[in-house]
C-alpha cells in the first residue's frame, strides 16, 4: 500500500480552483423492474426475482415500466429540465458478470431530461445554483459476492457469485454540468446538492432515496485548475460515495490529493477511485483507457419514448412544492433560525412537526417535543425519529394536555414514555399511570399550607419581599404532590397565601 501525499486544504485552495461533476444514481421505488414484471422487493432470497428478460435469455423482449418513465419525467421537471419530445434507449455494451445480458439498457445521446438546475442552500443560507446536464433512465446491475479473497473484495477472489434480483431495477442517473466557482466551498456544495436532491426525490415520492441502503449513490468527479485559469484539469472519478458526509469528505480529499500531485510537478491520471469510509481516503481503481468503449447503439427491442406535451404539463401541475421552498416557508411560519431549521432537517423532523401541527399542536410545542425529548429518545435507541412508536397525532395530544394545564412538562415526558412503551394513547397513559396534575384547589391549598408551615424561615423571606425564594417552596409542594401539580399555579397560591404580589 503506497501512502498518498496530501497538502493542507488551505494550501490547495490558495493555488487551485476545484471543478466538480456529480453523478447520482437513484433507484426508483417502482413495484417492478424497468423492463420486466419482476418484483423489486428488497430482501428476497437470491435469484428469486428474475425472468427471461432480466436474465437476458434468448427470445425475451423488454417492455418499459410506465411508472419508471413517469418518475423520470417528474424528476426532470422538478430539476427544471427540458423533457425530450422523443428519445430512445441504448445498449451500453460491456463484459462483466453483473449484467447477464452483457449490456446495460441505458440512454446515451437522447436523455429523457436535460438542461436544468437545482438551487441548493448552504449552511449559512447562501443559495448556490447547480446546473443539471441530464437525467436519464437505465437499470441497476446484479449483486456480486466475491469468494475466496480477503474481506470479500474482488481482488484476489477465487470466484464470484451473482444474484440478479437487483438486475433491472429502474435507475435514474442525474448528471450535473461542471460545477465551477464554488472555490473552498466545493465539498460543502457537493454535500448540499446531494442532500437537496435526496429531499427532492423523496418529496416527489418516486423513491425513498435511502443512501445507506444503496437507493441513492453518488460519484464525485473532481479536477483542479490553477487559480485564474479557465481550462479544466484532468479529473478523477470517485465511485459509490454513499453518504452525505462521505460526499463532502471525498471532494475534500481529492482536492488535497490533486493539489499535492500538481504542485510537485506531477500529472493527474484519469482514473476511477474508490472511497474508503473508515478514513475518508480514496485509492486508485482502474485507469480509463480505450478499453472503456461501450459501443452504444439504439436498443432495437424497445420503441422510442415520446412524452406528449399534454402529459408533461399534467405532471408539471402535479409537482409538489420544492423542498427548499417549503422549508423556507415553514421556517418563517414557525419563526425559527436557518440553523435551527437545518437541525430539524438533519434530524428528519420536518414532516413529523408538520403532521403534529396539522393534528392541532402549535408550532413551538410540536418542535419542542420532537427536537427535545423525542430526539433524545431516538438517539438513545439509535433509531430515526420517524421510527419511534409515537404518532404525530399522539404528540399533538400531549401538547394539548399541556396547553390546557392537565399536564406539566415533567408529566408530559412520562406520558411520552408510556406511549413509547406501548401503554396506549396519551389519555390512556394519563389514566393508567394516574398522571393528571393536581388541580383540586383544596388538595393543592393543603399541600401549600403544609409547605409554608414546614419552611417558616423561607416563608418569612418571601413575606419580606424576596419573591425569588418562592422557588424552594414550589419545589417542596411539587415533591409532596409527586410532581403532579401545576408549578405555576402552586407559585401563585404560595404568593397569595403569604400576601405578596407576584
Amino acid at each position: 500500500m503506497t501512502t498518498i501525499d496530501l497538502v493542507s486544504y488551505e494550501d490547495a485552495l490558495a493555488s487551485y480552483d476545484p471543478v466538480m461533476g456529480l453523478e447520482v444514481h437513484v433507484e426508483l421505488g417502482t413495484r417492478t423492474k424497468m423492463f420486466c414484471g419482476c418484483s423489486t422487493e428488497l430482501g428476497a432470497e437470491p435469484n428469486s426475482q428474475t425472468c427471461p428478460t432480466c436474465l437476458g435469455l434468448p427470445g425475451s423482449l423488454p417492455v418499459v415500466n410506465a411508472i419508471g418513465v413517469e418518475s423520470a419525467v417528474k424528476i426532470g421537471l422538478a430539476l427544471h429540465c427540458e423533457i425530450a419530445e422523443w428519445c430512445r434507449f441504448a445498449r451500453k455494451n460491456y463484459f462483466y458478470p453483473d449484467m447477464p445480458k452483457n449490456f446495460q439498457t441505458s440512454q446515451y445521446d437522447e436523455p429523457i431530461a436535460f438542461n436544468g438546475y437545482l438551487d441548493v442552500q448552504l449552511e449559512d443560507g447562501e443559495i448556490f445554483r447547480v446546473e443539471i446536464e441530464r437525467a436519464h433512465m437505465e437499470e441497476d446491475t446484479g449483486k456480486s459476492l466475491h469468494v475466496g479473497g480477503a474481506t470479500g473484495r474482488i481482488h484476489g477472489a477465487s470466484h464470484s457469485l451473482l444474484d440478479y434480483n437487483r438486475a433491472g431495477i429502474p435507475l435514474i442517473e442525474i448528471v450535473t454540468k461542471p460545477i465551477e466557482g464554488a472555490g473552498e466551498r466545493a465539498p460543502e456544495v457537493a454535500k448540499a446538492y446531494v442532500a437537496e436532491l435526496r429531499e427532492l426525490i423523496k418529496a416527489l415520492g418516486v423513491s425513498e432515496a435511502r443512501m445507506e441502503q444503496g437507493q441513492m449513490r453518488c460519484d464525485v468527479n473532481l479536477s483542479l485548475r490553477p487559480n485564474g485559469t479557465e481550462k479544466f484539469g484532468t479529473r478523477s472519478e470517485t465511485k459509490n460515495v454513499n453518504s452525505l458526509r462521505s460526499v463532502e469528505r471525498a471532494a475534500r480529499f481529492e482536492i488535497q490529493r490533486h493539489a499535492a500531485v500538481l504542485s510537485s510537478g506531477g500529472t493527474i491520471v484519469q482514473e476511477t477511485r474508490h472511497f474508503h469510509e473508515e478514513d475518508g481516503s480514496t485509492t486508485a481503481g482502474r485507469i480509463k483507457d480505450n478499453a472503456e468503449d461501450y459501443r452504444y447503439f439504439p436498443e432495437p427491442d424497445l420503441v422510442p419514448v415520446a412524452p406528449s406535451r399534454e402529459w408533461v404539463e399534467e405532471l408539471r401541475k402535479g409537482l409538489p412544492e420544492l423542498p427548499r421552498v417549503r422549508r423556507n416557508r415553514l421556517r418563517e411560519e414557525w419563526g425559527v433560525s436557518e440553523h435551527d431549521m437545518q437541525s430539524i432537517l438533519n434530524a428528519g423532523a420536518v414532516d413529523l412537526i408538520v403532521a403534529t401541527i396539522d393534528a392541532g399542536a402549535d408550532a413551538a410545542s410540536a418542535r419542542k417535543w420532537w427536537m427535545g425529548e423525542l430526539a433524545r429518545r431516538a438517539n438513545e435507541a439509535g433509531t430515526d425519529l420517524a421510527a419511534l412508536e409515537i404518532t404525530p397525532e399522539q404528540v399533538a395530544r400531549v401538547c394539548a394536555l399541556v396547553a390546557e394545564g392537565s399536564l406539566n412538562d415533567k408529566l408530559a415526558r412520562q406520558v411520552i414514555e408510556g406511549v413509547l412503551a406501548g401503554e396506549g394513547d396519551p389519555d390512556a397513559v394519563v389514566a393508567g399511570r394516574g398522571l393528571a396534575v393536581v388541580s383540586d384547589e383544596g388538595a393543592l391549598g393543603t399541600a401549600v399550607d403544609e409547605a409554608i408551615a414546614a419552611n417558616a424561615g423561607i416563608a418569612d423571606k418571601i413575606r419580606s419581599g424576596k419573591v425569588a425564594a418562592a422557588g424552594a417552596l414550589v419545589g417542596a409542594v411539587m415533591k409532596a404532590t409527586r410532581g403532579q401539580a401545576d408549578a405555576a399555579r402552586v407559585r401563585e397560591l404560595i404568593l397569595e397565601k403569604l400576601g405578596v404580589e407576584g
Partner: protein
Amino acid sequence: MPGITREEVAHLARLARLELKDEELDHFATQLDDIIGAVARVSDVADEDVPPTSHPLPLTNVMRSDDVRPSLTPQEALSGAPAQEQQRFKVPQILGED
C-alpha cells in the same frame, strides 16, 4: 466509403474478449469490410430526409403498467448456469491480485 480497418477489428475483438490470430484478423477484417460496404449502400438510397432507423415499427410509448408478474423460481433461473453456489450464479475470477 466507410469501412473497417484491421486495427478496429483487433480492438473490437479485445472488447469482445475474443483472441484472434493474425491470419484470423486479416480474414475477418476483409469479411467485415465487405459486409459494412454492402450495408453502407443503404445510405446511397436514403436521402437526407430519411432519418436513421433503429426500429422497423412506427410505434412509440409502448409501456406496461407497474404490476408484478411471477418470476422464475431460483431453480429455474439457475437451471442454465454452468456452475452455481449458494443459489447464485458462479462465475470465474474477475480480477487477479492487486
